[in-house]
C-alpha cells in the first residue's frame, strides 16, 4: 500500500526519478524538440527557398530588358534576334480564362455549397458530396485530354448549335423568372384581388411573349456562329471552372457550416422561410469565408498548366474584339511549359530568364491572393466567435 514513501528503496523496481534520469530526459527533450523544430522550419524555409531561386533566375531578365516591354508590349517573338518579350497578350490570356472560369464556377459553386449545407436532406448529401469530390480527384491531364480530343472537335463541328442550346437552357429559366418578378412588381399597386389577378396574368403573358421572341432571336444568331478553332478561351474557361468548382464548394461549405445553428434558428423563429434564412442571414454571415473560397478557386485556375497547354490554342495575341472567347489565347503557365524546351537551358539568356520572370509573377500573385484569403478567413472566425 502507500505506507512506504515513494523514495523508499524497498521497492527496487519502482520508477524513481533520479537526477540522472532527469538529465537524460531533458537532453532527449531538447534533441527531440529541436529536431522537430528544424524539420518544421525546413518546410517553411522551402517556400522562401523557392521564391529565392525563382527570383534569382528572373532578375537577370529585368536587368537585361527592363520592365517596360514585358508588361506593356504584345509582341512575343522570343526566337528572333534580338528577341521581343512583350508578355502583355499572354497575361491578358491568363486573365481572360481566369475571369471566364470564375464567371461560371462562382455562381455554380456557391449555389452547390448552399445546396449541400442547407438544402439537401442528409441522405442525398451523402451521394452529392462525392460527385463534387470526384471532380477534384480527376487529374489535370485527363481534363486536358478531354478538352482537346472530345470537347474541341465538338465546339468546332457543332459550335453554333451548342451555343444556342446552352443559351436557351441557361438564360431561359432566368428570363422567365425575370418575367414573373417584373409582372409581380408592376401589378403590386392595385388593391382589389380579382382585377389584380387578371391584370397580372395579362402582364405576365405579354412579357412572356416578348421574352420568348428575345430568346429565340438571340438563339438563332448564336446558331450561325462558326467556331473556327475548338481550342480557344471558351473551352479552357469551361474546363477550368469545373476544376475550380470543388475548391469553391468545399471551402464555402465549411464556411456555411461554421455559421452555426443559433443564427439559423433565430431566423426561423422570426418566421423566415428557408430560402430567406439562407439569403438574408446565413450568406452574409459566411460571406467572408465564401469570398476566401472564391479566391482559392481562382488561384487554382490561374496556376493550371496542362489544360491550357493542350486546349487553349497557344496563340499569343489579344483577341479581336477583346471579349471574343472563341479565339485562341496563350497563358503564362503554358508559355513556361512550352517555351522551356526551346529556351537556352544551360548558359542563360533572356529567353530562359523571361520564363522565370513569368514564374515569379505567378508566384507573387499566388502568395498575395493566399495571404488575402487567409486574412479573410481568420477575420470571419473572429467575428463569428465574437458574436
Amino acid at each position, binding site marked *: 500500500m502507500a505506507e512506504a514513501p515513494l523514495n523508499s528503496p524497498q521497492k527496487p523496481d519502482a*520508477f524513481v*526519478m533520479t537526477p540522472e534520469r532527469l538529465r537524460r*530526459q531533458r537532453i*532527449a*527533450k531538447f534533441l527531440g*524538440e529541436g529536431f*522537430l*523544430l528544424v524539420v*518544421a522550419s*525546413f*518546410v*517553411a524555409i522551402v517556400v*522562401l527557398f*523557392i521564391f529565392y*531561386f*525563382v527570383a534569382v*533566375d528572373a532578375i537577370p531578365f529585368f536587368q537585361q530588358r527592363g520592365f517596360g516591354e514585358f508588361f506593356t508590349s504584345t509582341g512575343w517573338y522570343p526566337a528572333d534576334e534580338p528577341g521581343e518579350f512583350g508578355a502583355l497578350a499572354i497575361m491578358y490570356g491568363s486573365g481572360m480564362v481566369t475571369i471566364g472560369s470564375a464567371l461560371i464556377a462562382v455562381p*455554380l459553386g456557391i*449555389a*452547390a455549397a*448552399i*445546396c*449541400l449545407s442547407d438544402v*439537401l436532406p442528409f441522405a442525398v448529401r451523402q451521394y*452529392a458530396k462525392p460527385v463534387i469530390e*470526384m471532380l477534384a*480527384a*480527376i*487529374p*489535370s*491531364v*485527363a*481534363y486536358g*485530354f*478531354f478538352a482537346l*480530343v*472530345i470537347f474541341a472537335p465538338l465546339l468546332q463541328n457543332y459550335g453554333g448549335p451548342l451555343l444556342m442550346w446552352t443559351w436557351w437552357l441557361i438564360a431561359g429559366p432566368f428570363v422567365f*423568372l425575370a418575367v414573373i418578378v417584373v409582372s*409581380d412588381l408592376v401589378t403590386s399597386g392595385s388593391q382589389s384581388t380579382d382585377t389584380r389577378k387578371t391584370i397580372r396574368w395579362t402582364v405576365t403573358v405579354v412579357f412572356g411573349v416578348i421574352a420568348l421572341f428575345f430568346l429565340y432571336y438571340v438563339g438563332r444568331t448564336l446558331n450561325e456562329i462558326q467556331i473556327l478553332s475548338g481550342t480557344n478561351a471558351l473551352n479552357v474557361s469551361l474546363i477550368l471552372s*469545373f476544376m475550380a468548382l470543388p475548391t469553391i464548394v468545399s471551402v464555402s461549405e465549411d464556411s456555411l457550416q461554421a455559421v452555426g445553428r443559433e443564427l439559423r434558428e433565430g431566423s426561423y423563429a422570426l*418566421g423566415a422561410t428557408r*430560402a430567406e434564412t439562407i439569403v438574408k442571414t446565413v450568406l452574409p454571415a459566411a460571406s467572408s469565408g465564401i469570398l476566401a473560397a472564391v479566391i482559392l478557386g481562382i488561384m487554382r485556375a490561374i*496556376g493550371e*498548366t496542362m489544360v491550357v497547354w*493542350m486546349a487553349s490554342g497557344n496563340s499569343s495575341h489579344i483577341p479581336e474584339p477583346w471579349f471574343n472567347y472563341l479565339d485562341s489565347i496563350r497563358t503564362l*503557365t503554358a508559355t*513556361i*511549359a512550352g517555351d*522551356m524546351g526551346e529556351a537556352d*537551358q*544551360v548558359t542563360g539568356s533572356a529567353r530562359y530568364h523571361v520564363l*522565370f520572370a513569368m*514564374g515569379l509573377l*505567378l*508566384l507573387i500573385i*499566388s*502568395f498575395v*491572393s*493566399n495571404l488575402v484569403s*487567409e486574412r479573410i478567413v481568420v477575420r470571419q472566425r473572429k467575428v463569428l466567435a465574437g458574436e
Partner: protein
Amino acid sequence: MNNSSTMNGSRKAGRTIDIVNRGLKSRYRKEKRFRLYGILSIVASAAFLAFLLTSIVMNGYSAFLQTYIKLDVPIEAGMIDESNPKRSNFQGIIKSAIREYYPDVTERREKRELYSLFSSGAAYQLRNNVLDNPPEAGTTLSLWVLADDDVDMLMKGHMKRDVPESERRLNDRQLRWIEKLENDGRIEKRFNTTFFTSGDSREPELAGIWGAVRGSFYTMLVTLALSFPIGIAAAVYLEEFAPKNLATDFIEVNINNLAAVPSIVFGLLGLAVFLNFFGMPRSTPLVGGIVLMLMTLPTIIIASRAALKAVPPSIREAALGVGSSKLQVVSSHVLPLALPGMLTGTIIGMAQALGETAPLLMIGMVAFIVDVPGGFTDPAAVMPVQIYLWADSPERAFVEKTSAAIMVLLGFLIAMNALAVVMRKKFERRW
C-alpha cells in the same frame, strides 16, 4: 380575424397576419425556385462529370481488346541460325509465311501492302516463341500475331468499310485480303495483354503502360519516403510543441504559402535547382519524387494536424499525470492514436501527386522511353506524362490507348481515395 373586442392589439394583429399571409405564396414560390437553383448546380456538375467519364470510357474500352491474326509459319531447315538463334531473320520468315497464305500476290507493291497488314512486332513474337521452345526443322507453327493498327481500327469499327477507297487508309485490295482472313476464322479480337505488359512504342498496337506504371511506382516511393516523415514531424511540432510566438506564425503562414505555389513553378524549381545546380540525372523518378514531395507536404501536414487535434486532451493529460515527459506523451500516446488520420491524409496526398504532370514536364520526363525502368535512376515516364505524350501522337489508334490509360490512372486514383475513405471509417474513433 375581425375580432374587435381588443382595440388596437387585434387590429394590429389582423393587419400583420394579413400582410404575412399575402406575401406567403410568393415567398414559398421563391423558396422552391431557390431550391431548384441549388439542385440544378449539383445536377450540372454531375452531368459534366458523367459526360467526361462516359466519353473517356467510350473511347477507351475498345483498347482492352486487340486484333490478332492466326498465321501458319512453316519453319524450314536453315531458317533458324543454330549458332545464334536470336539473329535469325524472323522478319523474313514471317513474310514467307504470309506469302504462302496468299499465293497469288506477286507484284512488289502489292506485297508491301500485304505485309503492312501485320504488325512489325509479329517478327518479335515469333522470335520469343522460337527462343522459348526451339522447333525442329520442318514443323509448322501456328501463331496468333498482332495485326497492324490500321487493321485493328477497321475491326473495331473506327474505320468504315463502305466509304470510297480514297477516303480510307486501307484500300480495296487490303480489305479483300482481310475478308479472306475473316472467312477462314483467322482474325479475331483478344484481350490486350500487350497494353499492360510493355512500355511505350511508336506503333500503337505495341504500346503499353507498364513502363509508365513502374515509373509512377518508383516516383511515388520516393515521394512517400521523403514527405511522410517530414510532414508528420512538422505537424507534430506545430500541434504539440510550438509556442505561440511570431516564429510559429511565420512557419504556419509559409506552410500555407507552399500549398499556394502553382505546380509549374515547382517544375521551374526542379529545373533550376536539381537539374542545373545539383546536376541530377534528367527524367528519373528520383528528381520527380523530390519535386512532388514538395507539393505533397502541405496536404500531409494539414491532414496530420487535423488528426492530432482530434485526439482529446484527456489522453495527453492522463499520460502526463502518470509521469510521462512531453516527448513520451506524444510518441507513445498521441501519435499512435492520430496515425490512422495521418495515413488517410498521406494517401490522399499521394493520390494528388500521382496525377501531377506539369512539374514533371520541366524536368525532362517528356521523352520517348521504351524500356521499363528498373530503378530510381533509370529514365522513366509516369502515367500522366505518358497520357500527355500519347495525346499528341498523330496515329488515330492512339486516341483509344490514351483513353484506356486515363481509365487505368483513374482506377488507381479511385482505389487510393476509396482506401483512404475506408480507413477513415474503420479507424475513426468517437471520443
